[in-house]
């Protein structure tokens, strides 16, 4: 029982415990913070496994990006201090049962199975190796998925704007009227200003 082992168990406990918290607490902000710690715990496990690059990506994207996004959306949609509605007890019990069965089944299968291991010499998980493979065109290269993912991200970017953008028909009437008046008032002098104002009014929505 050395230090590394202890750290592992601590990280595992933190990950699973915070995960349970994240799905069970009735206060949404607390859930978000629990999720954050669970994700940090996973990043810690990556560090523990000596996969620093992945751990860094985990922290940057999940902790720094997604969780922050989630917290922002909580601010946008939620009244603070309000507890979340409770699910029906029957649904909860049934879900618990189903989840437990699935968990048990999977664990039994995993522990009954013996995994075959390669005997080849390990490669270093350096950033250089990862980067080279990511843009390589060889047999093991990931250039095409890389490009596809970049297109996916672009599409998500545009899609988010399109979905979240409020169409004039959807907005309440007086708001639209007010906006139009505002535009007319401000815009009349110059053409560049029209663009700017439109961007501002459209972008915030």
């Amino acid at each position, binding site marked *: 029982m050395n230090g590394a082992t202890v750290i592992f168990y601590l990280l595992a406990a933190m990950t699973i415990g915070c995960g349970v918290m994240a799905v069970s607490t009735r206060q949404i902000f607390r859930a978000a913070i629990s999720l954050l710690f669970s994700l940090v715990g996973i990043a810690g496990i990556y560090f523990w496994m000596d996969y620093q690059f992945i751990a860094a990506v985990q922290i940057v994207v999940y902790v720094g990006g997604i969780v922050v996004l989630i917290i922002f959306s909580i601010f946008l949609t939620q009244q603070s201090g309000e507890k979340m509605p409770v699910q029906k007890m029957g*649904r909860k019990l*049934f*879900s618990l049962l*189903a*989840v437990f*069965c*699935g968990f048990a*089944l999977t664990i039994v*299968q995993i522990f009954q199975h013996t995994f075959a291991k390669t005997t080849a010499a390990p490669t270093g998980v350096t950033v250089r190796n990862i980067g080279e493979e990511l843009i390589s065109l060889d047999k093991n290269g990931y250039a095409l998925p890389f490009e596809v993912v970049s297109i996916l991200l672009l599409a998500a970017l545009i899609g988010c704007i399109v979905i979240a953008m409020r169409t004039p028909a959807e907005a309440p009437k007086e708001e639209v009227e007010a906006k139009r008046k505002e535009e007319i008032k401000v815009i009349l002098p110059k053409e560049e200003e029209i663009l700017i104002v439109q961007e501002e009014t459209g972008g915030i929505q």
Partner: protein
Amino acid sequence: MPSAILIALIPLLPLFTFLVLGLYRRKVFKNASGIIGTLSLLISFVIAVFTAYSYFHIHQGSHPAEIPFKYTWLQFNEGMSIDMGIQLDSISVMMIVVVTFVSLMVHIFSLGYMKGEERYPTYYAFLSLFTFSMLGLVLSSNIFQIYIFWELVGVSSYLLIGFYYDRPSAVAASKKAFIVTRFADLGFLIGILILSFYANTLDFNTLIATFTTQTPELHNALASTFLDVSALTWGLVLVFMGGAGKSAMFPLHIWLPDAMEGPTPVSALIHAATMVVAGVFLVARLFPIFSLSAPAALDIVAYVGILSAFLAAIIACTQTDIKRVLAYSTMSQIGFMMFALGVSGYGGENGLGYTASMFHLFTHAMFKALLFLGAGVVIHFIHSNDMKDMGGLRKYLPVAHITFLIACLAIAGVPPFAGFFSKEEILLAAYNSNPTIYYIALVTSALTAFYMFRLYFSIFWNKPTPLYSSAGEGAGGEVHHHKGPFVMSLPLIILAIGAALAGFIHFGNFVSSDGQPLESHFNPMFSIAPVTIGVIGIAIAWVLYKKQNDKPERIASALSSLYRATYRKFYIDEIYLFITKKVLFNLVGRPAAWFDRNVVDGMVNATGNATATLSARIKKIQSGRVQGYAIYTLVGVIALAVLFIYLWK
């Protein structure tokens, strides 16, 4: 021989006329339609005569079947196919001449008779359709092709009987004609199926060759029996059933008198001269099979024919509607043709009946069309069909009077008019083969003479000459009497010439059962009996109807029950109504309707209701809630995993 295209033009020209007149009847050809129809038929007639001339000119001595054109339309298997073809042999050549000639006469007559009708172009379109169908029927080389055209003439007959569709009686008559003939055609179709099943062909010539020579197919068809009657006989009897329906043979004749609701020229064309002899034509077409392989079927033809001839002649004596008298007379004469076929043998002297039948068909077309057209002139003048409204018309309608008299003499069998020769041959054929039939036929021909002259005297003599205002001056009277334009007289004169002289044709040279010329011997000694009995019939009619008197009423009251039964056409219509309305509707129709409404519909409805109920129950699953779907998915995945991992190794 004229080319196939030229022969094909004979039926195709009327078809073309039908299409053009039918499509553009309102706008383009409102008044010209009659002229167009007549001209196109005139061309058809000329080609038909030319074809006939060429055919008999080339084939002097014997008359084989020629097929100038044949297109295989539907191939079922090796040998069996539905073809569209043209078959030329002596009877089809004779028929195209008769059909085009009578149709031409009727077209010309209708120019005057139907003038001013609102649906004048439609009328000509239908006439063209009928002519096309009838020509297609007689030229058919395939038994299924003949069936197709058979139905087409049925349809055009239906359309023309119901031409005055605002008259309920005409509508009922057209429906009756269609349903009765359609019922008979069911038998025809089954007959076709039986024959083609055993012969493995639909082609007429192959069919006849198969069933008249000693082939395995023939033995097979003779060996398989149903109710102790061979399949071949069944097939032929069923085919004859179709023919009997179309030719108004007893007991399928009930539609013909009612069919007189149509315009009179239509009655002349369809219900006297052409369509109703289609049944005779059909039997003649298959005559070798009837004669050589199924004499039992031929006996049925003979007895149905003589029975129809006799019954119709009796009924005709008491009817007062002149068109109905003519209709029963038509039925009677077709009965003559049928039993002439029935008593005939195949080949040589024995084939006299066949020749006589075709000969009578030919002459009958002339004088019966003439009688109907003459009746048309009378009806046109009087505006009534009833004999009681007529009398003494000979001064007003001289042309109609003379031509009608010629036709009556012809049908009564008075020499030297056409009917004498053909009827003589029929009686001779009957005398040679079956004396019973001969004696009944003799009585029938006396009756024929009687009722025809009853008709003639009632129309043109009987009463003293009434005072009718003639055309143009009739403004004061309620009814406008006019004898019609010249186009109505012309066909009468032409047909009268035909009716008077057609008997001198040596018909045996042209048409005979085996294609070899038949030398018919004129036998003056034999003719004495029929002519005498015919003259007696005329004399009785003279006594009873020449002058207005009360003798007919006295005789009628003396024979009151018989008279009434005859006047009511032996209650055959009533029997049909009883069978259909009381027996079929109540015992079959109603239970079937009940079964349909409750069991069949019930099953369908139950299925529908069960589905609706079930779906209403299970639609709650589609709650629209994502988490519900997720749970179903998860449970499904786990269940499948358990199934595949543990239970289904």
